[in-house]
């Protein structure tokens, strides 16, 4: 078995004789030379990824004011930063929206502006104490004015990520971008063949203390990231690096429409080809890395998966889903991922980037369990009215009018012979028909595209449907689409009133 040591490889980096390829080039090399040959010929394989990494942020130290202040709340360009650490330490999270510009300018944009050398307005409120008498403060700072600006990101560089689509009949605006209705498109994220963790899935090299390329600076892996789940090939990294050394080329603020701000970050890891096992792992191709295509049309934690596909399929631009050709496109940038892997190759070759021995391997077991929810939220079935009147579509409008007047709802669900939901009719529809003057059947005036709630879904989902479509009542159906109740905005307001 061919082997070499990390010290040997670092020696070659120092003397300029190191042989570096990118993870895109490695599969063909291993195919041609075999793993043993690849270990002989290649010293380092560089990886790269560039995409939205929401779980990112920066610890900032402002230095002490005179008189000193213990900051309780702070705003940087009107974006709140967490002050619940020592007096003038703050944590600015990437996805925090601003209080004046909302999601169009958030924590990520402040970080981007700092790196671009721009001046940031700081407003702070203090908790007055004997040692920190100041209660309010305003100042303007540039990146160089902070004592420290350390990026600390709880979860970055996902090994791979679920692709997203939408079977519902409305456009969804998500952190996976705009998802068009009725399987209109598929969005995916991740660099596939270049993904750092897909090239070292068993952590033969990457561990605590591994030196990485982080947005142009040399950063380090702190350990496994939040939701790290290596058993299912969804490993993540917690990373850190000095913001003062980062470059805007690899650090870009973004806003997902109707979702919020996020930070696009470039991360790369050079992996030493120490042995044949590592050579084989770095020979991974797009076709070897598969992910489920998940339906974001279902607004629940356990969204159904429609199909398993590979990054090769996703990058082809088209995937067959349920007999339909669906176009795919990415949210992460493969162009930038490639640039990072190439930049890292140059830095290693020029002796500027040394590899580091991990202090501790990453955990091989992770946890990404669902939340334990101790306070049960009611389901639609718990608050709806079961005592409802529904009608068939062949009755006359004046009959429907009588039913509305004598009943307690101004909505009547229209059902088929076997009780399935066909449409809805409101007091307004009836008034309009009556004003029109001609007697008619409700089949001619009912709304056939009707929104409904499922009896066993949480009321939050029904509330969002009412809000999204500016309506006041929803028929409640069971799994066979049979009408079994009604839920109205009154039910929801009563529930809130009782909680207070």
């Amino acid at each position, binding site marked *: 078995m061919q082997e070499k040591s990390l010290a040997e490889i670092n020696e070659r980096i120092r003397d300029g004789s190191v042989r570096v390829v990118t993870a895109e080039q490695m599969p063909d090399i291993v195919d041609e030379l075999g793993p043993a040959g690849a270990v002989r010929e290649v010293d380092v394989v560089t990886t790269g990824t560039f995409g939205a990494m929401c779980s990112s942020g920066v610890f900032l130290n402002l230095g002490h004011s005179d008189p000193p202040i213990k900051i309780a709340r702070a705003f940087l360009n009107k974006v709140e930063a967490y002050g619940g650490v020592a007096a003038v330490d703050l944590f600015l999270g990437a996805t925090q929206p601003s209080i004046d510009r909302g999601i169009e300018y958030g924590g990520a944009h402040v970080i981007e502006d700092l790196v671009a050398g721009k001046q940031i307005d700081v407003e702070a409120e203090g908790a007055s104490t004997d040692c920190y008498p100041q209660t309010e403060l305003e100042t303007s700072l540039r990146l160089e004015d902070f004592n420290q600006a350390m990026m600390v990101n709880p979860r970055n560089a996902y090994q791979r990520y679920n692709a997203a689509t939408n079977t519902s009949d409305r456009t969804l*605006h998500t952190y996976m971008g705009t998802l068009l209705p009725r399987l209109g498109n*598929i969005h995916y994220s991740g660099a596939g063949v270049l993904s750092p963790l897909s090239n070292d899935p068993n952590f033969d090299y990457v561990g605590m203390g591994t030196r990485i390329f982080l947005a142009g600076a040399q950063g380090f892996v702190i350990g496994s990231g939040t939701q790290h789940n290596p058993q299912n090939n969804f490993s993540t990294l917690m990373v850190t690096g000095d913001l003062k050394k980062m470059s805007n080329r690899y650090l870009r603020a*973004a806003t997902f*429409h109707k979702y919020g701000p996020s930070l696009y970050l470039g991360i790369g890891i050079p992996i030493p080809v120490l042995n044949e096992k590592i050579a084989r792992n770095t020979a991974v191709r797009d076709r070897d890395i598969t992910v489920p295509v998940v339906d974001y049309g279902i607004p629940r934690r356990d969204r159904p998966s429609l199909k398993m596909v590979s990054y090769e399929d996703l990058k082809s631009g088209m995937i067959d889903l349920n007999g339909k050709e669906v176009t795919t496109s990415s949210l992460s940038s493969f*162009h930038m991922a490639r640039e990072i892997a190439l930049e890292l190759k140059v830095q290693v070759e020029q002796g500027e980037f040394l590899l580091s021995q991990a202090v501790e391997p990453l955990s091989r077991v992770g946890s990404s369990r669902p939340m334990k929810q101790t306070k049960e939220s009611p389901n639609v079935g718990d608050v709806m009215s079961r005592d409802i009147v529904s009608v068939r579509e062949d009755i006359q409008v004046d009959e429907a009018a009588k039913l509305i007047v004598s009943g307690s709802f101004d909505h009547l669900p229209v059902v088929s012979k076997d009780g399935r939901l066909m449409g809805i009719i409101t007091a307004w529809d009836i008034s309009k028909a009556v004003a029109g003057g001609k007697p008619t059947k409700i089949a001619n005036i009912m709304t056939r595209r009707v929104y409904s709630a499922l009896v066993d879904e949480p009321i939050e989902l029904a509330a969002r449907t009412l809000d999204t479509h500016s309506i006041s009542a929803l028929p409640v159906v069971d799994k066979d689409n049979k009408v079994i109740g009604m839920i109205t905005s009154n039910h929801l307001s009563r529930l809130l009133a009782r909680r207070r």
Partner: protein
Amino acid sequence: MKLMLHVFPGIVRYPLIASVILETSALVNIERASIDAVSGEIVLEVPAEKCNEVKEAFERRGVRVVPLEIPVVRDENECVHCGACVSICPTGTFRFEDWLVVADSGKCIQCGACVMGCPQRALKLVLK
């Protein structure tokens, strides 16, 4: 070539497009139409050789006509070539070429889906 028609309320009820087609025999394609209480906006695809004829026919009917030469522009400093605009465009204006996003502006009908869908806010419609 794409033409943007601005139709004013007084003539919205008149079968403008049908009458222009009958007059010019141009094979036009209606790519987008939005008409509300105060105005109408219609984007037509018109064969290049008939473009002037169709434009003049609409103008005689009181319609303001603007050829959409560069309908959408991109800020090259902001674009990271992610591809968020590629699959949401109804006319396939954007595509990857060796992982760079390239635009075929001639296909754009100014629906604006890409402007909202671009996380880097790099795209803008050229409004005329």
